[in-house]
């Protein structure tokens, strides 16, 4: 069962859309598993001025994307990188256990967007970016080892 907060966020998702000339874009997930999150951030002087998303997925995937963009808006990069999936879950007043992976996806999408920002800045090496952003080689996809066929 979804909490009222989750229902509120999938009914009226905040920050839906793209940012033109985004400072960073991060995409995680896989259509085979049924969820893809794409996060856009606008960074000015180390502060996330704007954050938006586009998500293909269930109600929880939409709600976690929505709430995660809300949380990181106005934060410094450093603060945003501290965001954990647990904070996303808490902010939504809980998620069914089968849906917790959606909150992990939201956290990872933010990390990817920030990593993309750093890459565009061109000041850090890939190893440094991976370290700072805590990127994992294996993305969260706990239930799916299928290849994306790419089929429609």
């Amino acid at each position, binding site marked *: 069962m979804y909490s009222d907060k989750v229902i509120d966020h999938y009914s009226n998702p905040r920050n839906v859309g793209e940012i033109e000339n985004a400072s960073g874009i991060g995409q995680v997930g896989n*259509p085979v598993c*049924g969820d893809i999150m794409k996060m856009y951030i606008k960074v000015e002087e180390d502060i996330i001025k704007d954050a938006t998303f586009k998500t*293909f997925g269930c109600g929880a995937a939409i709600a976690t994307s929505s709430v995660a963009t809300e949380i990181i808006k106005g934060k410094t990069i450093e603060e945003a990188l501290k965001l954990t999936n647990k904070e996303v879950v808490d902010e939504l007043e809980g998620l069914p256990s089968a849906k917790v992976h959606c909150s992990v996806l939201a956290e990872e999408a933010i990390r990817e967007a920030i990593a993309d920002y750093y890459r565009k800045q061109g000041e850090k090496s890939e190893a440094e970016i991976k370290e700072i952003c805590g990127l994992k080689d294996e993305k969260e996809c706990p239930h799916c080892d299928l290849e994306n066929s790419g089929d429609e």
Partner: protein
Amino acid sequence: MRRVYLDNASTTKVDEEVLNAILPYLKEEYGNPSSIYSIGRNAKKAIEDAREKIAKVLNAEPTEIFFTGSGSESCNMAVRGIANSYKDRGNHIITSKIEHPAVLETCKALEKDGFQITYIPVNEEGIIDLDGLREAITNETILITIMYANNEIGTLQPIKEIGEIARKHNIFFHTDAVQAFGTIKIDVKGLGIDLLSLSGHKLYAPKGVGALYLRKGIKLKKVLTGGHQERDKRAGTENVTGIVGLGKATELAYENIESTNKKIQELREYYISEVVKRIPHIKVNGDLEKRLPGNSNISFRYIEGESLLLNLDIKGICASSGSACTSGSLDPSHVLLALGLSHEIAHGSLRVTIGKDNTKEDIDYLLDNLEEVVQRLRNMSPLYNG
């Protein structure tokens, strides 16, 4: 808020006449049917009346009908019962890839017990491959269990042909008719069906009651042991109200079968044709001809089924989906995958199943909201470049 119920393959609202038939057995005639005093005897008589009604529409004898607690229980009784009673004849069972979990999971459990199971594939429309069925038969085959109509895509299987094949090879034939019973005229004798499972709540009777047709002369080991109810085939005090409801619902369903089906099918055809007209990037799943009149299953590309259902629910619309998030498992519907659909397309499926009480206004309300919700979710989807 307006509620539009379009999930009639999932369950149905109890019919007013069915409810009225049941009430006396809650209020006055509450006796245990095994008791010898009058309210017990009256309850017993009500059960036998219901049995006759069901036997009549199936062209069976009342002694060939056994009441159970659900369609799933009937399927378990049939498949496990035949496996256990006839294992000295062979250990091979043939089923299809698109069965309901009631049969599929039962077969998987039997596989662990040492039975060999063949899962026959289906074509793109969801019809089983009869040649594949013939080729799968071995000297060890004791049972063919193929559903009458599929619960997700409504596809009707070639039951008569399967019955003939089974008869020719002296193999028992069980069909899970949970979706078909009440909507399709079924003559078990004419179709060569040996065992048939059905359920009450799909045809406007209450939940918690099912029945099994078991052809005379077939042995069936009890699954539920205990008392000697149901001619010693199924223990447990009979669900008198459920059984009375099932009997009444059966009578009503078959009294009005042609007119109800015609009305439902027209609504279904209207719904599908309007979706095709109004919403791009869709795929209609399943066979359009060999199909239950009320069933539609459409995939909407670039969006996921659960979020579609949740957004329809906000508008008071009840439907279902084959997406992983709604199946309770990690994969989307095994039925849609068996049709050869990709995971992506299966995740975006919407099953709308129309019942006798639905109106054109219901469908129009659905269509208007569906158009809006699909567009909104697509605008939110990174896969969509509209």
